[in-house]
């Protein structure tokens, strides 16, 4: 099993007052370990829904999704939480740090949910904070540092449980171009260490950091730069 993500014929409908509204229609995608994928597409193309399914936050209406060999659709809520905790690291557009806690506690938070003791939690959180270049801000609060730094903290939090996969939803959406570039370089170096990365973006220059670009339109994948596993374009 060399795929970290394997998605087969996924459909997702949203129930609205007017009836079922299809958001994803027959999406197929496989991502190998160590791959670096940028998902692109206009608003409403279904890319966010797709990311939520990849992140085990949502379930597809139909189809199969294997994450790191686990068939996600058959897992219980607790098992999904465990996958989110250990296998996936999330990075959001709005950073989503806890304003009350200092950086160390923010980064250590995933470890609380995998029952790691306090000493180890703080040691590992400190290590990853040093790795993202924030070793001297351990006791600062998110409001005391810049946006770029906050996103680094979020990346550190995503890394602290040594995940296979990082899912980043518009990670540079709230940052200026210079800071965006720095954050992307951080992602590049993480990918070189062997972590698979899937990021959603609508900026072409950001997407070019990735090895592979996938484009969504109207709930379908309309373009995939990865020839070997190319999905046939739906006509």
């Amino acid at each position, binding site marked *: 099993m060399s795929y970290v993500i394997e998605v087969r014929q996924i459909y997702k409908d949203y129930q609205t007052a007017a009836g079922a509204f299809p958001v994803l229609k027959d999406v197929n995608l496989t991502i190998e370990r160590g791959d670096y994928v940028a998902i692109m597409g206009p608003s409403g193309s279904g890319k966010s829904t797709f990311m939520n399914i990849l992140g085990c*936050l949502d379930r597809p209406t139909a189809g199969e999704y294997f994450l790191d060999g686990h068939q996600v659709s058959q897992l219980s809520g607790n098992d999904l939480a465990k996958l989110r905790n250990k296998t996936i690291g999330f990075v959001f557009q709005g950073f989503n740090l806890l304003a009350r806690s200092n950086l160390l506690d923010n980064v250590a938070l995933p470890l609380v949910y995998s029952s790691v003791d306090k000493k180890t939690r703080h040691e590992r959180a400190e290590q990853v904070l040093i790795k993202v270049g924030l070793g001297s801000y351990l006791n600062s609060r998110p409001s005391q540092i810049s946006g770029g730094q906050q996103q680094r903290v979020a990346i550190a939090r995503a890394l602290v449980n040594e995940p296979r996969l990082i899912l980043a939803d518009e990670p540079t959406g709230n940052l200026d171009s210079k800071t965006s570039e720095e954050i992307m370089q951080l992602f590049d170096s993480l990918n070189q260490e062997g972590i698979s990365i899937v990021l959603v973006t609508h900026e072409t220059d950001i997407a070019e950091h990735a090895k592979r670009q996938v484009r969504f339109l109207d709930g379908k994948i309309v373009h995939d730069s990865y020839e070997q596993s190319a999905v046939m374009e739906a006509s």
Partner: protein
Amino acid sequence: MFTAMLGEAWHAMGANRMRTFLTMLGMMIGVGAVVMMMAIGEGAQQSIKKSISSMGSNLFIVLSGPPNTAGARSATGNALSLNVKDADAIAELDGVAGLAPTTMGSAQVIYAGNNWNTSIIGTTPSYMEIRDWVIYDGYVFSNSDMRSATRVALIGKTVADNLFGDDTDPVGKTIRIKQSPFLVVGVLNPKGQSLDGRDQDDTIIVPLTTAQRKLFGNQVPGSVRMMMVQAESDKAMPQAEEDINNLLRQRHNIREGSDSDFSVRNLTAIANTAAETTRTMALLLGAIASISLLVGGIGIMNIMLVSVTERTREIGIRMAIGARERDILLQFLLEAFVISIVGCVIGILIGVGGAMIVKSFTGTDAVVTTQSITLAFAVAASVGIFFGFYPARKAARLNPIEALRYQ
């Protein structure tokens, strides 16, 4: 994990101090009220118990005169239908442990320049045991004093204080009761108030014969106004009451269907009724106070619901990075629990303090028991969990995607 969550709960409470304090205040007032009301109830019960035990246990009073008669009625005890022989016969009954024929009156008592009006009890030495009187100083008059109707007296603490003051030892002194000289042979140990609020220490006990012949000397010889009868045990009381009734009716040749010319009163039953009443009152006080505890609990629920809504995004983040439903549930439950427990501890202090203030200002007994504190603690903890559960479950059931999107 648990300690980490406890820390989080503490943190979250600290983030909104005023709100946390106000929520706790509800709990504090509730617990404080419960502890204080229970203390007052307990105090009342204890003072009743003290009065009951000072009365003596398993007591009947047998009075001469009918319980009720048609036509003109005189006060019970005035028609002298009982006599010493009746008393002896009752003393022989199974289940009767002791008996003391008693006569009562009031008289002016004089010692030196002091005088005092008090109640005089004429009785036998067995009265001391039946009524649980203990001698503080001196000795009890004897049966030979009874036979020869000597002028000796046992005086209560109140009488001693009023006639002799603090400096003089009353034992061996001679007082005048209705102008007759009496030798004080003993001072009674104080008992305090009776059930009906009389001062039991404001009394003088003299031999029955002396009282009959020399103080209230207008009686048929050998007649007895009333007698105190003590049953062997609580269980023997109903049988003893029936036996006394039957025996006296037989001795007085009262036909079936006619009214008795005496009456038997079960003092212990009356006392138990009083105790029961106080218990009910204590329960009522506690129940009313519990309502404020309930209101405090609802306050916790209210604030937790607000807190869950406010922290929707935080809940979403936690879920995204791997919190299970029960982790979220536990976090909010713990927060409600900590609020109620801290509020409870402060409330207990308030309650204990309040009980002390009530005691010092009104003189009412207020007794805080460990039991009441344990109870308040247990109830507060369950209130916290009970009212924290719904908001916590609401938090745990949030959809992570919607929670993350929440602004």
